[in-house]
């Protein structure tokens, strides 16, 4: 009987305590209420919440504040959010937006390991920033070093080193610019993806023809042939750049590609369904899986 009373008492005390505290919290909520512009809250919901910092603010909420208060008028800073995010924010703020292109990362180097001159065995810190301080790391002083600085900063697993050169996975790339900031050679730029596949200059070597040929078998020699056949190609120093303002209706890539003797001009991005279908019948090389078991016995025991 006594235990029953004790249980009831304890339960009653707890219930009363809960009611009292609930009342205090409810009172505090009203007494200390801070007005937040509902627009800002809506923008916060519209942003992806990745907090990548690509917009230049410390996180999504700070960018939302800046947009809501009018401190920043540029709606297009969010790479991960893409076009849909811009549209949503524009609706919340009641602004009309013209078409916005998703910007994605493009690596301006496509020289695989066997296509470039490698100079010496590198023994230092295995990062691009460190290797970039060493003159003889590889022949080309402009191109990708393949030591993964960009891979490490990518939050979306969208860039990888393949055959010694950084390759972007356009299914995943959100255009947050972190890789571009991490690259010590500044060979990653953000390109407006006006189509799913984009035509890019995959070389950043600014030297003269002979020097480029001595260090790389695919790099651009600055022959200017492509710039002669098309207005879209403009020379920037010793290498061409693409004028993406003219890109919208442009389809005449054949003559440009024909002129380029060095395979510096390539398409990157997500192939269209037609292209996938075109190669669907081709034979896929058989893939041999690695067998890690066989080497176990050879390794030294380090205990």
């Amino acid at each position: 009987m006594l235990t029953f009373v004790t249980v009831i008492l304890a339960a009653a005390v707890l219930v009363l305590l809960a009611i009292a505290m609930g009342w205090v919290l409810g009172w505090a909520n009203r007494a200390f209420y801070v007005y937040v512009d509902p627009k800002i809250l809506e923008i916060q919901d519209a942003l992806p919440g990745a907090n990548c910092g690509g917009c230049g603010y410390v996180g999504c909420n700070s960018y939302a504040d800046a947009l809501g208060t009018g401190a920043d008028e540029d709606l297009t800073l969010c790479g991960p959010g893409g076009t849909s995010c811009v549209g949503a924010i524009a609706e919340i703020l009641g602004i009309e937006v013209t078409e916005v292109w998703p910007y994605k990362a493009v690596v301006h180097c496509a020289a695989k390991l066997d296509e470039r001159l490698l100079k010496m065995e590198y023994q230092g810190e295995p990062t691009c920033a460190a290797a970039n301080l060493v003159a003889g790391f590889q022949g080309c002083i402009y191109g990708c070093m393949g030591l993964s600085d960009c891979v490490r900063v990518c939050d979306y697993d969208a860039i990888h080193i393949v055959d010694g050169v950084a390759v972007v996975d356009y299914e995943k790339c959100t255009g947050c610019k972190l890789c571009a900031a991490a690259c010590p050679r500044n060979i990653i730029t953000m390109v407006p993806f006006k189509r799913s596949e984009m035509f890019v200059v995959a070389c950043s070597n600014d030297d003269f023809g002979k020097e480029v040929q001595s260090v790389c078998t695919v790099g651009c020699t600055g022959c200017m042939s492509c710039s002669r056949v098309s207005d879209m190609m403009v020379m920037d120093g010793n290498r061409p750049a693409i004028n993406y303002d003219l890109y919208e209706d442009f389809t005449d890539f054949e003559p440009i590609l024909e002129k380029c003797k060095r395979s510096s001009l390539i398409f990157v991005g997500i192939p269209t369904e037609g292209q996938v279908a075109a190669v669907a019948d081709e034979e896929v090389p058989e893939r041999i899986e690695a067998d890690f078991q066989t080497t176990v016995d050879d390794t030294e025991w380090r205990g």
Partner: protein
Amino acid sequence: MSTATTSEATFARGIHPPEEKHLAEGMPIEILPTPASVMIPLLQHLGAPCEACVEAKQEVAIGDKVGEATSFISSPVHASIDGKTKKATVATLPNGRHVKVIPIKAAAEQSISGQDLFDDVFGGEWPRDGLDAYEPDAISKAALEAGVVGLGGAAFPSHVKLARNEETPIEYLLINGCECEPYLTADYRLMVEVPEAIITGTLLAKHATGAKEAIIGIENNKPKAIAALRKAAEGTGVEVRSLKTKYPQGAERQLTTAMIGREVPTLGLPLQVGAVVQNVGTVAAIARAVLRGKALTHRVITVTGAGIREPKNLLVPIGVSYQELIDYCGGMTEDAARVISGGPMMGFTVGHLSAPVTKGTSGITVLTHEDVKKSEETACIRCGRCVDACPLNLVPTKIALASRAGNAEVAETYYLQACVECGCCAYACPASIPLVQLVRIGKIMLSNK
């Protein structure tokens, strides 16, 4: 001041790596035969690059200016052989700079070569009286015109250091004859063979800077150099002091502490404690520039290391390729593994041997596989050996690990910027952590902010 007066004066901490000077120490300076072509880089010094002042296919004579200094901290460059210029191109120097170079193809007839060249550069009379007749400004101006830069390695334009400073008067002119870098013997040979030129240059620099005292500091592993300079300095008031053999004795902060017992403030210059430091090779070049009006076209270089067949000390024209010097020294041995511009502590690995020698190149060291064998990097156990070795009283491990973590701010609070990258910490580290490289990355991160 009490420490400075003992004969074995030195600084705190530092290391003592194997000297390896025996390889080239006994080889008298040889004169390299005029190469078929040279490449004159337009940036050979610390500061702004030069602007080319010659056209392609222009006849130039030895000593003609080919690049004009563009700002106060800059230095002109000169043709080092007689010949014809070619179209300017680019070359990557061992320090990683990608610079414009002017190639010069040698003429069949050279106006000066062989022993005549040596006599012109270092031989003949070096007067020591009547030097006060030169205006201090004229000395600094002659050094600028001749393109004299610090020949110890950093290649800081000398005319800047020769100018009088009204705010902080210079009391001491310290001449660095330490050559603390292992393997290198170029300065040593210069001190043994032409001490008179060094003394004359010292007196000129002393007069230009208005220093009250001039002291030459030499490590005590070079008794012949000390004896030769003491003999040459007799009656001139220049003191020659023997210092303890320790790396980096020749670094300007450490030398100032060792010689006059004054500590250079962190991130400051020796000038702030009333001292200015010049290398022995630099003062010899100043003497040549002032008394003979000759530009800095040649320098002494040590080609050494276990990977070189015949180690030598050579008088070479600036702009000659590494390959040519190595070939002249009998080429590389079979087990040669790495070519370094400079010595093993401060030097840069040379990526391609076609690179030209610059004013700051003090030597070429070729190491063997045995020398460059790298042990596996292990974790830092906070043993503190890098702290014991750091001549600047820094905590290298903290700086390096902050830099590796990408946190330049933390590295800066540990005085990242004060590091002179002497390499003592990395040498002492039992875990083989590339401390200096990490420090350099940290500095770049900070400058990119």
